[in-house]
Structure formats: C-alpha cells, structure tokens
C-alpha cells in the first residue's frame, strides 16, 4: 500500500515529466488528446501544490515545523538527493501551477498550433520551475535550471519569425554564459566545502577559515551573479525585455515567473548562509544596491518604450527590482510583504502579457507609435484610405469593455493603486519599510526604498495612462476584436485572483509572514534535512 501523501513532494516534478513525455508519443494530429493530457497535468500540479501548501502549514502534523523532506533515492541527506518543501517552496509551487494553468488554457485557443511540441515543452518548463523550487541540493538546482531553460528556449522560438529568432539567439547566448557561471561556482563551492547539499553547506560554511573562506566567498559571489542574471537585475537584464516582448503571449505569461526563480534562489541560499556571515553577493547591501538600480532602469525603460509588450517587460524588471530592494533590507519585516508583492506582480504581469496580445489584435498601423513621433517622422498610414469600408460590423461593446476594464485593472495592479492587490502589496511593503526605518539606526535605506517604489509607481501611472488613452480613446480606426472564452477567461481569472488576494489579504499575509519567519530560522531547515530518516531505517513501507 502506497502512502500517497508521503510522496506528495515528488508529484510537481513527476507529473509534468510523465505528461510531457507521453505527449511526445502522440501524433501531431491528436490535438484533443494532447490538450486533455496537458490540462489534466496542470490540474494535478495545482492539486499537489494545494496539498503541499496545507501540509507546510502544519495540516495533519506530518511535518515538524512545516518543513517536509523527501528522499527520492532513499539515501540519507548529505549524500543523496533531497527535495525540501517549506512554506516558501509551497507558495512558489502554487503560483507556478496557477499561472501555468491559465497560460495553457489561453494557448489552446490558437497559439499551440503555431509549432510542434508546444505542450511537451510547456510541461517540461513547469517541471523545471517546480524542481528548482523544491530541490535542496545545489547541483540539482543547476539541473532544474537547465531543464527550464532548455524548455524556455524552445518556447521562446515557438511560432518562429525574425524577431523571435534573433531575440532567442541573444537570450540563449546570455543564459548559456550564466549557466557556465553557475557551474563554475558550484564546482568552486564543492571544491572547498566538499558538499552540495544546501543544509550541509550552511553548516560547513561556518567552519571555513582563512584562504578556504576566501575561495568559498569567491564561489558564492559567482553563484549570486548567475542568479542575478536569471532574476533580471541591472546591468544583467538587457536580454529580458526583447526576449519576453517577442515571445508569443502565453509563453511570455508563463515566463513572468521565470525571473522569480533567480530571486527565490537568492532568498533561499541567502537565508541559509546568513547566520555564518553571508558572502558578498548574498549580503544585503549588494542586493539592495542591485535592486535599486534595476528599479530605476525599469522605470526609465517603462517611460521610454512605446510598445505594449515591451512595457510589460519593463514591469517584470520593476517587479524584480522592487523585490531585490525589499529583500536587501535587514531583518524579516519586509520579507512577508515582499512575498505578497511577488504573488501579486507575477499574476498581474502574466495576465498583462496575455491581455496585450488581445489588445494588439484590435489595432492598426502606427498605433504603437505615439502621436508626437508620428508627426515628427511624418508617417502616414499606407492603408488608411481604403480601410474604413473594409471593416464591417459593429464593434462588440462587451469585448471592448472587457479589454478596457482588464487594462485598467492590470495598470492599477502594476502601479499599485487602490483598490486591488497591487496596492495592498505596495502599502504593506512601504509600511514595513517605515517601521524598519523607525526601528533602525540607519533609516536612510528604508526611505530610499519608499521613494524608489513610489517613483516607479508614478512612472507606471504616466506610461500606462498614456498608453491607455492612445489605445482606447484616441484610436479612431480599429478592427472588431473577437474574443474567445478560452482567451478572455484566463486573463479574467488571473485578475480576479488578484482581487481575491486583496480581499483575503489578512490570511494570505499571515501565511507569508510565517514563511518569512521560517526563512529567518535556517536551523529548522538544516535540522529537518540532516535528520531526515530513510524509509529503510524506519523499517520500510
């Protein structure tokens, strides 16, 4: 008799792996069967994530301190592979499952037919994401990073075209170099400490002295650099906007959680190494400075760009910058609010990428360019004279109203205006920062954070106000949007989830604050991993 609950941590990895592989065996013509498998796999991942969320919260009392350790090869911890689930990992798994399901349903409308093996690649991407959140082992982190990156290369190129291929070329080159950095750092850390297990590493890092400590710090610095590339921190993020902007809509939507993997890794490893003195790249000053630069870069880019997809790309950068800045503050007061911001911003940017593609369909030549630019370069719409008669039919008010409302909701969420969850997230972040400023001796950092977050919000309001006016009010020529339920539905669901986050902010923040407190006590994590019993010593099941 298999104890299904005991094996819960492996499902988020095993389910998409099996589903993705099974779909490879089906012929291209059997779209229905493939779509069914893909949706079933995403639903199963969502269910597994919900179970893990409940288990990590202490339901059933299976896991002491809410930390579950799973030994896939049944070897004891420092030697074998471990998967570790705590609240933070469970939250990220849930977020991935929700975003994955929404993007998948959106893609079923037409995007999955643009190329081969979309669904398999999509499942492998989810597997890589889930694995990276679950693993308790540095080398497996690299392997899962590679799984998700390899799938993302294929998905970015999905649909082909000049823009995608040339953006993909740069994306792949940058990420290959980042992967090599990751390998160098892993090898260096193993060479010094003799372990790859994160918990064991946290223990052994404290015992290093002299030149060994210096080598370890060098390795950790390279490791941090590799994660910062993935997180999209300035000046390592020039690949991001073009890559995400050229990807097809559902792919870009699911990519919006990929930068958060880098931030998750920084947070996880940083929290484990902190008690022994975190090496430079994980220490707070560097993260704060990098985050601030990223935030400023994102805000300036948002104001400068005129294309909607790229604007959303800059929103991803702003979100990464805000998170890095907030996590770079000392103490855990800001970690809980930062996690809330992470949830809200990932759901928002995901919905926004899909919404932008729906809006783009309604627009005509030159609509991406501001009126000033049109005048300056004396551009004329070559199709204008004979277009107005061709477009027949009455614009469906419901569809336009939906697009407009969804755009307003996304803009409110991104900029952090009331009443949606973006406001709750930013407000709790700023309030925690002010509390930290009053409590600490050097309050300058907290006030810089407040100023930067508010200024980036202002930049967002200006940019999206400008874009919204141009799209919905001043565009006199527009084709009729045709919305399918499978396209509008996921966008609506993601936005409604943000509304739900705002409504249920109390319980959600309580869970996230618990997650932050768990991160502040790495000893619990280390104990849980190193004392995990194998099934054989328990007498077998």
């Amino acid at each position, binding site marked *: 008799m298999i104890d299904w609950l005991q094996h819960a941590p492996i499902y988020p990895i095993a389910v998409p792996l099996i589903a993705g592989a099974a779909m490879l065996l089906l012929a291209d013509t059997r779209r229905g069967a493939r779509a069914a498998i893909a949706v079933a796999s995403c639903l199963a991942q969502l269910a597994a994530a919900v179970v893990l969320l409940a288990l990590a919260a202490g339901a059933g009392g299976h896991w002491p301190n809410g930390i579950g350790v799973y030994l896939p090869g049944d070897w004891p911890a420092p030697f074998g592979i471990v998967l570790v689930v705590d609240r933070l990992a469970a939250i990220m798994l849930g977020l991935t499952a929700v975003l994955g399901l929404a993007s998948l349903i959106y893609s079923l409308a037409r995007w999955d037919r643009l190329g081969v093996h979309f669904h398999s690649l999509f499942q492998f991407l989810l597997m890589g994401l889930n694995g990276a959140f679950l693993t308790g082992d540095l080398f497996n982190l690299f392997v899962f990073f590679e799984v998700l990156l390899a799938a993302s290369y294929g998905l970015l190129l999905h649909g082909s075209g000049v823009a995608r291929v040339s953006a993909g070329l740069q994306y792949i080159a940058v990420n290959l170099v980042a992967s090599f950095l990751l*390998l160098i750092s892993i090898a260096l850390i193993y060479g010094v400490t003799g372990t790859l297990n994160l918990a064991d590493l946290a223990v052994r890092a404290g015992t290093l002295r002299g030149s060994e400590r210096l080598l370890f710090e060098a390795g950790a610095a390279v490791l941090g650099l590799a994660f910062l590339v993935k997180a999209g921190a300035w000046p390592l993020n020039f690949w991001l906007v073009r890559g995400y902007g050229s990807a097809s809509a559902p792919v870009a939507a699911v990519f919006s959680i990929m930068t958060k993997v880098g931030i998750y890794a920084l947070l996880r490893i940083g929290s484990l190494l902190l008690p022994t003195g975190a090496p430079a790249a994980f220490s707070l000053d560097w993260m704060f400075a990098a985050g601030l630069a990223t935030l400023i870069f994102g805000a300036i880019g948002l104001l400068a760009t005129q294309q909607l997809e790229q604007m959303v790309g800059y929103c991803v950068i702003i979100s990464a910058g805000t998170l890095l800045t907030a996590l770079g503050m000392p103490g855990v007061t800001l970690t809980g609010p930062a996690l809330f911001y992470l949830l809200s911003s990932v759901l928002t940017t995901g919905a926004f990428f899909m919404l932008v593609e729906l809006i783009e369909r309604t627009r005509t030549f030159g609509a991406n360019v501001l009126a000033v630019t049109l005048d300056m370069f004396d551009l004329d719409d070559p199709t204008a004279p004979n277009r107005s008669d061709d477009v027949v039919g009455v614009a469906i008010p419901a569809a336009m109203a939906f697009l407009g409302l969804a755009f307003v909701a996304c803009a409110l969420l991104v900029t952090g205006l009331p009443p949606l969850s973006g406001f709750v997230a930013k407000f709790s972040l700023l309030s925690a920062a002010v509390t930290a400023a009053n409590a600490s001796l050097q309050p300058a950092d907290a006030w810089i954070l407040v100023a930067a977050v508010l200024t980036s919000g202002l930049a967002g309001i200006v940019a999206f106000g400008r874009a919204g006016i141009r799209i919905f009010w001043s565009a006199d020529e527009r084709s009729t949007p045709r919305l399918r339920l499978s396209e509008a539905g996921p966008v609506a669901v993601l936005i409604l989830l943000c509304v739900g986050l705002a409504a249920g902010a109390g319980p959600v923040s309580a869970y996230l604050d618990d997650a932050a407190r768990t991160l502040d006590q790495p000893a619990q994590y280390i104990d849980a991993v190193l004392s995990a019993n194998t099934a054989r010593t328990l007498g077998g099941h």
Partner: protein
Amino acid sequence: MELIYAAAIGVLAGSGVWLILRPRTFQVIMGLTLVSYAVNLFIFGMGRLTVGRPPIVDAVVAPDPAALADPLPQALVLTAIVIGFATTALFLVVLLASRGLTGTDHVDGRESES
C-alpha cells in the same frame, strides 16, 4: 601538473570570453564551446588532481577513502558535458535559423552601420 592544468583552463576561458564578445554568431558559438571546455576541466579539477586512484571499491579489501579519487566531480562533469553539449547544439540550430531569416551572421540580426 596543476600549473599546466590551470594554464589550460585559463587559456581556454580567456579565448572563449574574447570570442563570445565578438559580433559574429559563429565566433560566439566557438567561444561558448571553448568556455564550456574550460568549465568542465575546472569542475574535474575541483575533485583534486590524482593519478592512478580510480574510485572503485574493491569487493574483498576494505576501501581506504584516502586512496580513492573523489568520484562526485566526475559524475558532475558528465552531467555538465551532456547538458552543455545539448544546449550548444540547440544554439547552433538557432544560429542557422537566424542566418537564414536575416541574411546576416551578425548577432544583432543586422550589420552595424559603420
């Protein structure tokens, strides 16, 4: 032996980085390949360089850990070789697609103005 080994890694990594920063896609892929060689050698070197100590446990004699090479970096380097090889092969395909679609082998998809 360590000096030669380290110098080889340094030369490979240095040449690789220089090539990656070049504007032609073919130079970039050669650079990535050279860097991946350097990284693989580096991982291998992190298990310490030893001669004549295969990490094979004798069934009869009790093993002496000091007499065996560290097998883990060897396993890691195999994984790294496989992954690096596959992603480089994928990059080659994208490179060819980009060459076909844009008609140039510049990394930006167009020739620089100068």
